């Protein structure tokens, strides 16, 4: 214990060290004045993430951070400023800057239908100029307009419609970014890692859209602030809660109902948000004619809570919590899984140019399944992944042309890959326990965003990451044939393996004109925790395992190059991005791998390389009556692992060369909105039999090379219509009906193709296709008060 304890102390020391280094900054002689403040929604007090501040005179600007804070360094003088945010009325003002100034900006949401307005599109122009590429920000308002499966509006499903992002299975919430595996996506909810973002076998994600403020996806050019995954970062931020008045919203849907309450605790000082969602699929099961289905429990719920407190001008506190669970069972067995996260954050302004945030984070994913006591073969099986993290992030708006970011993160991981034991007094079962593992993952980063002249801006920095395997731990040693030789047991607290990685992250933007730019980026990422999962669907039986003596960290190098253009008058954004990505020490699993309850899991792993490349085109209409996007991606992704497919390269399961998404919303009137999306993707690569043989009376297949065939192409149209109630001046309650059709033209997209023996003719084998969803209609009533 002592050594773990020491490493925790060390972590806390690291956490506070920056205080010492920067206390002196206040007194430095400053050649510039600072204009800073917060940008917020005028009606709810909700902080606006990624709002832009544009200075006409310098033709430059900045973007508010995830807490709504912005800071600009300017010379003494008079400036025309424009504060803007998509979907809000921009605020223009002239300002005589004589001293350091603080200015909090309230922006009014605009009515997209009535105001076919004057928005000059500064917000889009700023995005073109920033040295940040391969990023997409989705506002929850836009996500809500996208037609959804069973009417359940879903953040992850919306992300799957972006270029370079693909769903890994029909209706599932697993996704692959630029050919990477689903476990290479870092999914954060208010900074806490969500290890399994899926409900109900993956058909729904854990994010209740009423509790979510915004979602940002980094699919390349991952900023040094983030680390630990190769492919992407999904940064989901919860609503802070209305600081002006008590409001609520909710919905009654086909499979679930939601209710959210938010309001001030002390007006303008503190607020809270509480959200709950529960499905009631089990109510419908009772009507099933199938006796096997009838007597089952089947539901999931999500609870989100957040509170924030503005201590004073310089200090703000945030508390957020999430708990979700799936419950699944009957008299004969039960299965349950869920995530819990808790984040405590403290924003501190050392001065108007040095912003900091300190976080303490808890994250847990667990599952249990079993046959209850009293049933034959009664047993209980549990597994869990548990993280404690501390984190500090600093942004120093150093000069007009330099913005520095630096910080630290330390996470203590506990892996409990699984324990199974018989229950009841008469059990014949022994206890099977796969050994727990402990590890410390830490990182320190520095990056600088620099403007050189009026055309070129750069962002360069690095992340230094470290991973320590800490005892108590049992490591099995394997020979070259992956057979277990013996094991080594490390005592409590001993650090028995350490990895370091230097991860440079560089990007640049060169403005060709005021409205177009070229961007390029190179990033390296290291990943130390991996998911033992060889199916593509979202099963909850996830086992995360750590890098260690047998498993090297995965490393990813990515190069991206892109051209970006905006047409401000048409509120249109266009971009083309190309990427090449190489994954060192890629992990795959041997044929017929046993991943569950296997203490020799390391022996089931095979290592090699993976690479992908592609081109992504995006055309996005940001505001107005008609909004949405059209995207086309061409990409390939391959793997080469010596012991798989006889060492020959094979297309990864996520290799789907052509991918099209069309997402459109049209506001016909204030009361009526139509939404539609259409997706098309080349069929997934699959392995089919090319021969057969007979054992007893069983016909067995002889397979082709891995992934040598393809499923038929996938395509689907979803449509929705939203009808809002009439607005009346003195009525707070407003409601809307949403009708949607998933898979509107009933395309039979194969979920799986099985090769089976014909039950009626013993010598005949045939191929059989299973598809999941035909037309799925849904109706939802949403309300606000």
């Amino acid at each position: 214990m002592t050594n773990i304890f020491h490493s925790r102390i060390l972590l806390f020391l690291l956490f506070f060290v920056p205080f010492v280094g920067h206390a002196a900054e206040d007194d430095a002689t400053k050649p510039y004045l600072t204009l800073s403040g917060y940008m917020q929604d005028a009606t709810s007090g909700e902080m606006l993430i990624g709002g832009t501040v544009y200075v006409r005179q310098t033709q430059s600007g900045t973007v508010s951070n995830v807490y709504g804070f912005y800071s600009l360094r300017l010379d003494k003088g008079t400036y025309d400023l424009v504060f803007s945010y998509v979907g809000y009325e921009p605020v223009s003002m002239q300002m005589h800057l004589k001293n350091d100034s603080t200015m909090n900006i309230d922006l009014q949401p605009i009515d997209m239908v009535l105001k076919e307005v004057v928005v000059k599109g500064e917000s889009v122009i700023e995005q073109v100029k920033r040295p940040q590429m391969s990023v997409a920000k989705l506002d929850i308002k836009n996500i809500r307009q996208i037609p959804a499966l069973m009417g359940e509006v879903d953040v992850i499903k919306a992300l799957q419609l972006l270029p370079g992002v693909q769903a890994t299975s029909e209706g599932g919430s697993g996704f692959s970014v630029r050919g990477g595996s689903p476990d290479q996506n870092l999914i954060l909810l208010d900074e806490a890692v969500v290890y399994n973002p899926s409900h109900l076998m993956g058909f729904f994600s854990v994010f209740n859209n009423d509790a979510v403020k915004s979602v940002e996806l980094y699919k390349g050019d991952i900023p040094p602030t983030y680390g630990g995954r190769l492919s992407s970062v999904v940064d989901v931020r919860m609503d802070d809660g209305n600081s002006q008045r008590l409001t609520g919203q909710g919905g009654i849907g086909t499979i679930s109902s939601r209710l959210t309450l938010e309001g001030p605790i002390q007006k303008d000082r503190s607020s809270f948000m509480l959200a709950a969602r529960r499905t009631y699929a089990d109510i419908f099961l009772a009507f099933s004619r199938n006796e096997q289905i009838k007597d089952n429990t089947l539901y999931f719920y999500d609870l989100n809570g957040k509170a924030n407190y503005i201590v004073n001008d310089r200090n703000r506190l945030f508390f957020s919590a999430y708990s979700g669970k799936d419950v699944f069972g009957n008299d004969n067995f039960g299965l349950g899984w869920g995530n819990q996260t808790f984040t405590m954050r403290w924003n501190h302004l050392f001065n108007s140019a040095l912003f900091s945030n300190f976080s303490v984070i808890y994250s847990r994913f667990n599952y249990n399944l079993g046959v209850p006591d009293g049933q034959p073969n009664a047993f209980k099986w549990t597994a869990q992944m548990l993280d404690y993290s501390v984190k500090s992030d600093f942004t120093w708006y150093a000069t007009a042309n330099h913005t520095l970011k630096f910080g630290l993160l330390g996470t203590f991981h506990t892996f409990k890959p699984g324990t199974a034991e018989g229950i009841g007094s008469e059990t014949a079962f022994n206890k099977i326990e796969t050994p727990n593992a402990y590890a410390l993952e830490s990182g320190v980063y520095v990056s600088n965003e620099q403007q050189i002249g009026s055309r070129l801006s750069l962002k360069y920095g690095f992340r230094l990451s470290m991973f320590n395997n800490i005892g108590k731990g049992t490591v099995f040693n394997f020979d070259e044939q992956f057979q277990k030789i013996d094991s080594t047991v490390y005592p409590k607290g001993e650090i028995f393996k350490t990895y370091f990685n230097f991860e440079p992250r560089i990007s640049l933007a060169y403005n060709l004109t005021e409205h177009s730019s070229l961007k390029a980026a190179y990033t390296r990422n290291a990943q130390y925790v991996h998911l033992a999962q060889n199916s593509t669907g979202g099963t909850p039986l996830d086992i995360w395992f750590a890098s260690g003596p047998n498993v090297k960290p995965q490393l990813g190098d990515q190069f991206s190059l892109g051209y970006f253009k905006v047409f401000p008058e048409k509120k249109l954004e266009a971009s083309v991005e190309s990427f090449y990505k190489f994954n060192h020490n890629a992990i795959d699993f041997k044929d017929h791998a046993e991943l569950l309850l296997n203490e020799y899991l390391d022996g089931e792993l095979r290592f090699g390389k993976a690479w992908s490349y592609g081109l992504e085109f995006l055309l996005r209409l940001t505001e107005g009556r008609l909004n949405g996007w059209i995207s086309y991606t061409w990409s390939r992704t391959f793997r080469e692992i010596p012991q798989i497919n006889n060492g020959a390269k094979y297309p990864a399961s996520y290799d789907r060369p052509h991918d099209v998404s069309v997402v459109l919303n049209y506001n016909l009137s204030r009361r009526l909105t139509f939404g539609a999306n259409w997706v098309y993707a080349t069929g997934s690569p699959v392995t089919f039999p090319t021969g057969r043989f007979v054992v007893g009376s069983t016909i067995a297949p002889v397979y082709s090379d891995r992934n040598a065939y393809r499923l038929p192409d996938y395509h689907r149209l979803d449509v929705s219509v939203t009808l809002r109630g009439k607005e009346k001046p003195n009525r707070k309650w407003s409601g809307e009906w949403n009708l949607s059709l998933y898979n509107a033209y009933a395309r039979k997209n194969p979920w799986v193709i099985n090769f089976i023996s014909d039950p009626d003719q013993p010598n005949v084998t045939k191929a059989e296709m299973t598809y999941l969803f035909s037309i799925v209609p849904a109706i939802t009533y949403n309300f606000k008060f």
Partner: protein
Amino acid sequence: MKTKILFPVLFIVVLLGSWSCTEDYNVTLDDSFTRLVIDGSITTDTTTHTIRLSSSTSYFYNEMPPAVSGANVLLDDGISQVQLQENPVGSGFYSTPSDYFGVPGRTYQLQISLQEPIGSSTNYNALTSLPATTFKLDSIQLEYQSAFEFWSIKLFAWDPPTTDFYRLDASINGVLLTDTAFRTAISDDRFFNGNYTNGLSTIWLRKEEVQAGDTIELMMSAIDKNYYDFLFELQNESGFNNPLFGGPPANISSNLNDGGLGYFSARKTGRVQMIVTPELYDSLRK
């Protein structure tokens, strides 16, 4: 205990079944080259033991597999050798004399020389060991699972403290029910090593398969790890797949050398019977 993990899996498949639809699918498949296939086992029973030689075919061949006939098949247990006779001639079935029995602890090698090469070889061999596991069968009981409308055969047996692997087969009134890989039960002893199995559910029978008055026999065979792996892979690859569970399709291992397919196994067997009297049948169905 793999069968246990399958249990929730089956349930989820049933559940998804309420959302999913299945239909026949037309696909053109390439043909892989023809290989020799072996199927058969040596047991500790004193009887005629039969080995079948056939060849692999294209996937939609849709006929009995072509017999590999006229081969010279020699069985060697390390001490003595016995020549297997093709019977009937032309069938591809090769048999030992009727007084032959396997001896626990011995290693068996089958040497095959073909009249005409399959693949690039005319000579093949397969090696297997007959476990000396000292399991002790006590009895079986029957239980009716009304929720799933299935019977389960509950096993009462002693497992020795060694690492063991088992195959379980059931027959009713002398007719083998576990005639396909998917219905045969296999188990390692991780969950009950060294214990009395105390009513472990093993084989599942459909409601209508058991009638009052039936005699149910359970055959328990100790097998070696490689054969267990083969059966596990065979079950995985010849049943239904779904993307939620199980990894990508992969070829089934074999102990026939030179790219051969199938398995030549050796089993130490034990048997136990029960009679489903009308009184017992009625009380179980309650």
